[in-house]
């Protein structure tokens, strides 16, 4: 009797989990398809799915199109076209780039693509307007085959497409030449061409196919969401990566199974998990919120505990030696006078800027400038982990939030002075960062990025919900209020005083970062960034330096997060620190300059000052004296910053030191050559040769055959 009821509960849980499992499976299939056919960890998959879904919805709703033409446009025309454009303009050139470089490109696209789409068709997500699916009455007609759990038509359509898609795609890879060719191009385009296969066409086809699949998945999944917004699709991709990881990221049938297992497992867990919260009330937030976090726990667990997936390193292209080496960044050597000149210019610029800000700025501008300074502190954490250590961490937002929440809790509960609490918050963040880095030590590159992303989402879904972190229900109504600091007679309630405090912290952290770069840890990290194997072979232990880098980076992020919370007098987690927000931080820093302190400061300024100054045309309008002189331009949508910086991050593969850094160095060395041509120094010779188009090295120095 009990057995029968357990059996029925189990069966019901399976049925309940099937729809969500199918959605995971659909996205996982698309993700695996892209990975298999392009070698790209396409985090922009969700953005592609979002565009098709939104376009379909927009065409049906706004333009009054019927289902079939809207579907043809969004899934079979626009989606593959986007894929083709991405392949042609970006990924074709990146075929032999490292997986990490491609990942950063995909992150940049994930930021840029939705904004481009929304600007292009003037689409604005409206809260509460639930998208309609392609099936007539899909959400309101139900079928109940077993008399236990009804499925909607939409859900049945998703299941059918997921199953057919998996079977068809598996057959494509198993039985056809194009399937074999697509896999071959990922591994070595040149080997494929030597077999007489046109690699460009094959990879274009692969992108069109996987993008169309992304579009299809997007349109099918859209009715699940209340409001059609891009971050939901990104969240779904991260969940789907967990499902794909169960299939080791290369097997389509296993990705399908992985998605279903994840859906079923979650439902079964919900049905049968003991309710500890009844006896231990402090666990309530955990049991309440664990369900959406299960995929992230699974993903993190797989990455850390399953060695097989880590060994799935990118296969090296045996013909990589044919490609010329990437261009080296221009030399830093320059004439001492020029260095002095640049320093004098920078200093006077800063002094004038400071004077303007402290005497002329109103409340709004003061706020924006302070925000820029505070964000620069946060971004220095990315400089350490991504710029110095070469690791992509996507959980800097969580570290920063830890700093903010620590200040909130300590000030709220025990009236600890907030400055002290900020330092404590930085140490807590450092401890969490150090601890987190231990299980992920052996992961590199893409896997580390995924593990940190899983952590960020786990933090977002579960940890924030605990009263001793996010404040629980009271903070829902009252916010997470934080007072401004006092230091003896100094009251930082005054905005200008707080700006001074932020500047002091920025200077201290900057010098710490420079010390780190020039010290043992910094040099060790530089070696590790070059080649971990080579570093180990000369006796460097990667572990210590990695843990240190993570801890220092988390410390800085925590401190910055605490400052940001103090500045806004509120932690404001969803706006400031949510995982998708932190993704944009990385894009900003990487596209400007990830390896220098200036880069982080410029990124901070770009985040907070770029929209009001450049986009809203403050400068332009000031020059033109009136906005009306250029009709139709103002106001410029702030979304442009996502487009611009997202697309700039795409350059990461060619210029890992940062686009801005690259062009800055180039123009400085050109200026140097022009001004001081008569006073030659070591930096000149190389530049002059390059300008004349001469080779950098004499032929005698060429070693073109690598002996293995």
């Amino acid at each position, binding site marked *: 009797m009990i057995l029968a009821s357990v059996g029925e509960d189990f069966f019901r849980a399976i049925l309940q989990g099937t729809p969500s499992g199918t959605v995971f499976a659909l996205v996982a299939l698309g993700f695996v398809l892209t990975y298999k056919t392009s070698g790209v960890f396409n985090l922009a998959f969700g953005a592609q799915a979002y565009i098709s879904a939104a376009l379909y919805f927009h065409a049906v709703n706004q333009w009054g199109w019927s289902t079939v033409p809207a579907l043809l446009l969004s899934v079979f025309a626009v989606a593959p076209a986007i894929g083709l454009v991405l392949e042609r303009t970006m990924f074709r050139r990146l075929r032999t780039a490292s997986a990490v470089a491609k990942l950063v490109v995909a992150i940049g696209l994930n930021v840029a693509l939705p904004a481009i789409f929304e600007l292009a068709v003037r689409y604005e997500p409206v809260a509460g307007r639930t998208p309609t699916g392609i099936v007539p009455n899909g959400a309101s007609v139900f079928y109940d085959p077993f008399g236990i759990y009804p499925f909607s038509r939409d859900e049945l359509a998703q299941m059918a497409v997921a199953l057919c898609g998996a079977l068809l795609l598996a057959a494509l890879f198993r039985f056809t*030449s194009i399937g*074999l*060719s697509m*896999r*071959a191009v990922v*591994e*070595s385009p*040149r*080997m*494929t*061409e*030597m*077999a*007489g*296969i*046109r*690699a*460009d066409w094959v990879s274009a086809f692969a992108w069109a196919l996987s993008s169309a699949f992304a579009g299809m998945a997007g349109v099918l999944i859209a009715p699940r969401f209340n409001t059609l917004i891009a971050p939901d699709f990104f969240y779904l991709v991260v969940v789907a990566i967990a499902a794909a990881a169960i299939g080791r990221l290369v097997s389509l049938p296993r990705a399908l199974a992985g998605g279903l297992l994840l859906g079923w497992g979650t439902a079964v867990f919900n049905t049968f998990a003991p309710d500890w919260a009844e006896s231990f009330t402090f666990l309530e937030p955990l049991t309440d919120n664990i369900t959406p976090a299960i995929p992230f726990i699974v993903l993190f667990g797989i990455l850390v505990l399953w060695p097989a997936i880590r060994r799935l390193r990118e*296969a*090296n292209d*045996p*013909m990589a030696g*044919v*490609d*010329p*080496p990437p*261009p080296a960044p221009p030399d830093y050597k320059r004439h001492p006078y020029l260095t002095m000149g640049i320093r004098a210019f920078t200093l006077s610029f800063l002094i004038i800027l400071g004077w303007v800000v402290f005497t002329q700025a109103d409340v709004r501008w003061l706020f924006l400038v302070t925000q820029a300074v505070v964000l620069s502190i946060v971004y220095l954490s990315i400089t350490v982990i991504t710029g110095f250590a070469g690791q992509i961490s996507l959980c800097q937002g969580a570290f920063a939030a830890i700093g903010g929440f620590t200040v909130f809790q300590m000030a709220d509960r025990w009236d600890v002075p907030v400055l002290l609490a900020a330092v404590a918050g930085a140490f807590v963040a450092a401890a969490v960062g150090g601890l987190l880095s231990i299980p992920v030590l052996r992961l590199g590159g893409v896997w580390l990025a995924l593990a940190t992303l899983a952590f960020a989402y786990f933090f977002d879904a579960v940890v924030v919900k605990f009263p001793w972190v996010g404040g629980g229900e009271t903070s829902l109504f009252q916010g997470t209020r934080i007072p401004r600091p006092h230091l003896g007679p100094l009251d930082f309630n005054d905005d200008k005083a707080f700006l001074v405090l932020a500047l002091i912290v920025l200077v201290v952290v900057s010098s710490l970062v420079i010390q780190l770069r020039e010290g043992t840890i910094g040099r060790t990290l530089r070696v590790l960034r070059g080649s971990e194997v080579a570093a180990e072979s000369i006796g460097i232990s990667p572990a210590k330096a990695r843990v240190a880098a993570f801890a220092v980076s988390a410390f800085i992020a925590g401190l910055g997060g605490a400052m940001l919370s103090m500045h806004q007098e509120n932690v404001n987690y969803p706006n400031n620190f949510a995982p998708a927000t932190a993704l944009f931080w990385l894009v900003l820093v990487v596209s400007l300059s990830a390896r220098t302190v200036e880069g982080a400061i410029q990124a901070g300024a770009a985040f907070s000052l770029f929209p009001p100054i450049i986009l809203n045309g403050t400068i332009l309008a000031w020059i033109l004296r009136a906005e009306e002189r250029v009709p139709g331009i103002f106001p410029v949508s702030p979304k442009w910053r996502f487009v611009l910086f997202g697309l700039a991050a795409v350059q990461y593969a060619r210029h890992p030191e940062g686009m801005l850094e690259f062009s800055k160095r180039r123009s400085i060395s050109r200026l140097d050559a022009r001004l001081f041509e008569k006073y030659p120094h070591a930096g000149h010779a190389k530049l002059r040769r390059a300008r004349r188009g001469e*080779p*950098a*090295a004499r*032929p*005698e120095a*060429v*070693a*073109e*055959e690598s*002996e*293995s």
Partner: protein
Amino acid sequence: MKPPDSAPPVLEMRSVEAAYGPFRALFGVSLHVGEGEAVGILGANGAGKTAVARVASGLVPPNAGAVHIGGVDMSGENAYKFARAGVAHAPEGRSVLATFTVRENLELSFRRALGRRGVKSGLDRAFDFFPRLGERRNQIAGTLSGGEQRMLSLARVLVEEPRLLIADELSLGLAPIIIDEVYRILESIRGAGTSLLIIEQHVTYAQNLCDRIVLMDHGQLDWVGPAQQAGDALAARLFSPNSPRQ
């Protein structure tokens, strides 16, 4: 030696210059391989042998000069067009698709070269040449030993009987017994009409197989002549006090 007047040479390179990015590798190399002819390239490391092979198979486009395949100018064309024109290149080292199985590695190329129906017989021939590969036909190529990967790389081009077979560091990493076998196969497909461009460190092997030998140095042709005289030319270069390489 002049190419025969009747048929254009299978491969003709005219004053080819080539570079890897800023690094120049070839300086005005002119070379031809006639129909059914076997040419061997010898030279020290960094002499430009591999660059010649890569230019001849379209992997590296020439910066200046021209590459003709069967009388057709193919300079700057993509590598797949060279392959379709009948050039098969077995690059040096472990040049296999590491995540593919042995069988998939061969199939990828056989499907086009031998046609869909020819794949089966092609696989049979490949496993006939190298029984070791037959035993491991479903193994992932990246897990094969170095010598086995070399066999796989060669099996692909040997079975196809292309118009021009280019083999880079042909015998490197192979057991002597296998080298003998490879040369026996080369001899036989050459009889069937395939031209050969071989890069080889074993002077005697090259001499026995090839009609002509090319010695390369510093990205240029140093000496071209009949295979039998190559030994003397090489010795003269090694031991002459005026030698550029000492």
